[in-house]
Structures are given as C-alpha cells and as structure tokens.
C-alpha cells in the first residue's frame, strides 16, 4: 500500500545518489564548520540540474508541475542526509504562493523559486507585525525608497524565521491575508540567531517601515499552509529517523564488546527494535498525511492528519536520536560523531511550525473534545 510509484522511487534514487556523493558526513560537517547555512553549489545542482526547487511549481511558472508527493520524496532524502538546506522553506513558500491567487507578485517569485535563483522563507506567526498602506511618493511622510501605493508598510518583528538568514524573500502568512517582502530591502534587518540545530539557520527579522507586496489569498489559506508545513516537515523527520536507525543498527552489528556484537545483547537489540517500531508507526501516519495533502483532501481532514503527523514524527525523531546516543555509548557523545547533529535537529524540528502541545490540542478537538 505504498503511496509511491516507480517514478517516485527513481526520483528518490537520484536524490539519494546526489546527496550521498555531495552531502556526505564530511560535506555536511564542512558546511557547519564554515558557519555556512548551506552549500550553494549543491543548491544550484539540486535546483538547476535536477529541478527539485520547482518540483511542485506549475509548468507555466517554470516548474515541473508535480506536487506534495514528489516533495515528500525529496524531503525524506534531505532528512536522511541531515542536509543544511533552505529547501523546506523554499518549497513551502512555493506551495503557499501556488495556493494564493495568481498575480504578478506570486508569478514572479514562483519563477524565481523554480529556477533556484530565489530562496524564500515563510512566517506563520504574524501577530506582532503591523501593516499599513503605502503612500504616493509625493505624499507627506513618504520616505525615499519606502513603500508606495499598492504596497504595504511593515513594522514589527518576525521572530525565529527559519532560513531567515539565507532567504531572499519572506512570505508572511496571516489569516486570510498574505504578503511578500524582499529581505534585502530598505527597513529590513535580519539578525541571525545561534541555535541548537547546527544544520539550520534562524533569524529575527525586524521591519521598520519596510515595503511588502500584498498577495490575494483565500480565507483558509493560512490553515492550509500551516498543515502543509507540518506535513513537509514530517517527511524530513521520517527521513532523519530512518537514517538514525540505519546508522545505529550498523554500529550495533560492528561493535564488539564481551566477545560479541553489542546488537546480539537483548538490551541493545530491543532498543533498536523499539526504534523500528517508533519509526514505522510514525511513518504510517506521515504517509497518510502526505497522501491527503497530495490529493487535496478537505481542510479539516488534512489539518487533523497533519497535526497527528507532526506529533508522531516529532516524538519518534526525538526518541530515536536519544536512543541512537544510548546505543553508541560514549562515541555517540563526541562532537565528531554525527549522532548529536541528528539529536539537535530532532529537538529543533519538534518545535517548528507548532510544538507537540499545540498540535495535541488540535487533535483533541478533532477527536471530539
């Protein structure tokens, strides 16, 4: 009952080959140690050569017109590799803009995303940002280069913006309204944050009279984008969890203590079995959510499945990365070992796009409370 076709498996194999070659442990480590947010050459290959950035963008906008199913394959592979990459943010922005009514602003940014030239971030928590209308360049109070009629004036801060430090544009996703802001524009300050997850970058983005282009959106746009965000992230988490189990299984098979592989001891064997159980139960939930997202399920159903996936995959990834360190013992606690990189990413991912507590409350409502 796989949701994937043979074509999807080929896509997976292609991406995996690329990442195994160009984003192996050493390459990921080099990106992190260089304090780079991502490998720009690899990004260019992923987007220009393989067209991954435009997978789910319409052909009329320069994409290949596929959808969530294909993105899920790529994101699982990115999760496996624990790749530092703005891919998740950018394709989520692409989905959000595709869901919005087509106009010049969305069309231009979608083409930029599809080509890999524009990196976009999204921000779902816009409560602290005040919007007002731009004025005629000739009007009193107009700042040279500032927002004009047809544009919005932004003031306030978007906190903890994922990929904020590397994104060219930020899509602000409010209830029933959206806008796009050029992060290189006047009145925008991007402050890069330190973080637990060394493979992602975050920023507080402050607007001080910055210009934004409004986009036309439907009433349920924000809820749908939020659900898609959770589903896409769940794919990354499942990919990471799967790889964590593989690495741990290998180690338990190779490492000898007391004259035999540690994986032959029940304590380790059962820990690995528990990891498998966590992974596969979470995967069953994630696959269901991907299927619903890919087939345009009714919003309520999609939201419930997305929250369930977010909770299940967050908890599974967190648990598996803790177990990974337990299975590895001391070696898994060294800076050189990749265990802590997955461990860190699991903790960060669990809190992106709504934490377990927020999603649990939505699930309780869905169940009937």
């Amino acid at each position, binding site marked *: 009952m796989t949701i994937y076709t043979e074509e999807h498996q080929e896509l997976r194999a292609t991406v995996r080959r690329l990442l195994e070659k160009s984003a192996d442990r050493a390459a990921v480590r080099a990106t992190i140690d260089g304090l780079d947010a991502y490998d720009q050459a690899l990004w260019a290959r992923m987007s220009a050569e393989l067209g991954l950035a435009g997978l789910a963008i319409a052909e009329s906008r320069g994409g290949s017109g596929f959808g969530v199913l294909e993105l899920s394959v790529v994101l699982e592979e990115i999760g496996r590799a624990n790749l530092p990459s703005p891919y998740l943010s950018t394709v989520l922005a692409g989905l959000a803009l595709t869901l919005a009514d087509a106009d010049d602003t969305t069309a231009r940014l979608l083409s930029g995303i599809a080509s890999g030239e524009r990196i976009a971030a999204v921000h779902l928590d816009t409560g602290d940002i005040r919007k007002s209308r731009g004025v005629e360049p000739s009007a009193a109070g107009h700042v040279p280069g500032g927002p004009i009629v047809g544009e919005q004036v932004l003031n306030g801060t978007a906190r903890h913006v994922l990929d904020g430090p590397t994104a060219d544009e930020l899509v602000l996703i409010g209830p029933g309204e959206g806008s796009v802001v050029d992060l290189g524009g006047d009145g925008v300050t991007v402050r890069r944050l330190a973080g637990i997850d060394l493979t992602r970058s975050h920023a507080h983005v402050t607007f001080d009279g910055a210009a934004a282009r409004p986009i036309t959106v439907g009433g349920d746009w924000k809820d749908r984008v939020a659900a898609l965000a959770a589903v896409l992230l769940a794919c990354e988490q499942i990919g990471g969890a799967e790889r964590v189990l593989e690495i741990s299984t290998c180690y338990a098979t190779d490492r000898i203590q007391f004259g035999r592989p540690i994986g032959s001891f029940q304590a380790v*064997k059962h820990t690995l079995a528990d990891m498998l159980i966590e992974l596969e139960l979470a995967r069953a939930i994630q696959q269901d959510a991907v299927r619903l997202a890919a087939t345009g399920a009714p919003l309520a159903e999609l939201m419930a499945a997305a929250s369930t996936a977010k909770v*299940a995959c967050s908890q599974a990834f967190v648990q598996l990365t803790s177990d990974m360190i337990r299975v590895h013992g001391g070696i898994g606690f060294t800076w050189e070992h990749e265990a802590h990189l997955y461990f860190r990413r699991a903790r960060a991912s669990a809190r992106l796009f709504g934490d377990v507590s927020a999603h*649990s409350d939505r699930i309780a409502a869905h169940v009937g409370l």
Partner: protein
Amino acid sequence: MSGSDTGGRPEEGIVDDRPSLAVFGRTADAWFAEHGRPANMSLSRSLDPAAHVAAARKYQRGLHDAGLAGITWPRQYGGLGLGAEFQRAFEQAARGHETFGDVFTIGLGMCAPVLLALGTDQQKRRYIRPMLRGDEVWCQLFSEPGAGSDLASLATAAVADGDGWVVSGQKVWTTYAQHSDFGLLLARTDASVRKHLGITMFVADMRSAGITIRPLRQATGDQEFNEVFFDDVAIPAQNLVGAPGNGWRAATLMLMNERAALAGGPISSPVTLAAVTELIRNRGRQDDPVIRMRLAQAYVAQRGADLFAERIAAQVAAGDEPGSFASIGKLAAGRVARQVAALALDVAGLDAIAWDPTEPDGSLWAYGELYAPSLSIAGGTDNIQRTILGERVLGLPREPQPDRDTPFRELRRSP
C-alpha cells in the same frame, strides 16, 4: 499445492462463473446491510461464550452461502479463487461490522493457510470447506506450561503406534478449545535430536477419547482460554501434517500468519478511544488540558496502529508476505490498549475502582485495565516480538545459544 491454486486465474476444466469485482462488491455490501451486526464493543463474548460462538457459526455459514467466504482460496477446496482486490472489497464492506475474528482467525487465518501449504490433498478436501461454512471451528494446540516463549521446548509426546500415533501431554492457552472441533497440534516425536528437529504437526479431533479440556480463568475473570490434557489420545496416520520432524517449519508458518492476522486486524480492548472520549465528555473533563493532551497522545498511538494495520492488511491482500515486520502491529495494539485503559481509569476516578453492582458500565473501565496486559502476552510476548524484529527485520546477530546442538532430552527445562 501448486502456485496457481492460490491465484485468481481460471483453472482448467472449470467453467469460469466468477463474478466481476463490481458485482462482488455489491453482493458483499448488500449482505452486510441485511445480516451484518455492528462490531461488538461490549463484553458479550465473555459473558456468554457459547451463544457468541453459535452466532459466529451462523455468520460464517451465511457468508459462505452468499459466496463471500474463502475469497482468494482455491476453488477445488471450497474457495472462490478470486484475486486480492476482491478480498479488499470484502473488507471494505465488512468494516464496522462484527466479523467474529476471535472465533475464526485461528482456523481461517492460521490453520487453513498451513493446511493449504503443507496438508495432503485429502486433508484439504476434508477440512477446508467445513471451516469456510462455519461448521467446524479450529483451535491451536501449541503452548505448554513449560514451553511458552520457548515453544520449541514443548514436551507433549506423540509415539508411533501401528499406523497411527498416541499422544500424551498438556497444552495451555488454547483459545476456545471447548468450542472447537479440530486443532492443529504440535507434539514431540523424537527426543533424541535437538529440540527444533523432533517436532511434528497433527490434526487433532477435539472429541477424541483421552482429551480433557479444562477452562483457564484469566485475571479478568473471563474463560476464553483452556488447558487441554492429552491422555493416550490416538491420532490416525492420515492426520499427520507434513512429514514427521517437520513440525517446526509448519509452526513457523502458522505463527507468521498469526502475526499478520493480528497486525492486520489487531485484537482490541473493549475500552476504545471512542468510549473514553465519551467518558471524558460525560464527566465534563473535555477542557482539562492534561486530559486533552493524553487523549491526543492516545489518538496518535491509535492512528499509528490503525494505519500500520491497513498497510499490513493491504500487503496480505495483495499476496505479499509481511513476515516478521507485522510484529510491529501487535506491539502497537497492546500499547494503545494500555494507554487508553489507563486514561479511562484516571478519568473515571474512584467510580472505576468501586462501583454499584447495578451500574451497567460499572466494571468496564476496570475490565479494560485488567484486559490490556494480555494483548502484550498472548500470541508471543512483547519481548519475543522485539527479538524477532531485531533479528529478522534489522538483521542483528542472535544471542549465543550454548545448548543449540543439545538433544531435547538433555536440555535444561522448567519443571
């Protein structure tokens, strides 16, 4: 049995009168619409087991007569010879209805596949059709007091006697033995070789002289299980399944089918997520954040178990063998049952601990809590399932087995 027997392809010499998928689906829908009963969440089966088994037989007879039983099984033994898509259509129609899995899973889901794979033509002709009609109920005579997780250390002995065999020993945990007509029996026919090699499988007629069935009362007070005593029970030669000494292979096949059956449609507790949700609302606890969090957690666990079961069921229906992987479903079902039962107990509070005997649902929450642990024991403990997953799915090395080559009779065993 040749490969084509199990497939959906027409067989030579038989007129292909098989229905189209659409017709079959409509037939199934119509049958359940007329005869189906909602899936039974009450305790009826533990309250009046005999009536429950009688209802089960009637249900299965009805399915058979309507052309809805043995869907993918070979036609010459009473099956319909249809493809996996028909099985899926049936399951679609059956969803939400009582299907008496507790009575039939052992026969139809476990014994029949073994007989079809390893039985003689005569055995298949004799046993499969009556099983499909619900005329004959089957049980599994495997576990023994001294052979639980270590099933291969079983001690019930079958001694050759003329053409046939004479069996003595004790089985335990035999589900519905008292309602069964036949059982697949594992017995030791050679104690001089190592334990896995000396085991043989037989068809046991449960009405044979020398068989004594004693109900085993569970912690819940239910009596679904039995002890079965064999006291010089004669078993004829034609009841041998496969060759002498090949019983372990047959047992493995049967247990694999058990895991797939349990993972695809796991046994659940009467204290369901829906029941506890209603309880929470009845108690006015729906705004308590701790309760909301716990219910959400239980729902996530339940969805994981359900969606995993769907995946396994689809694999089985498609003719794939999920193998040991299916153990995950059984573990998940046990975990959900414990989680939901504990939540119900906390919400019901003191009313779940002590209740007026006239309250209709008074004992339900206590029952669920007592029942839940059994799901992590019956059909292989959680630890056994974990070992299976670790070794057969993840490929981890086995533990050293110093007595690996020791003949059975020299093994150290529990008294």
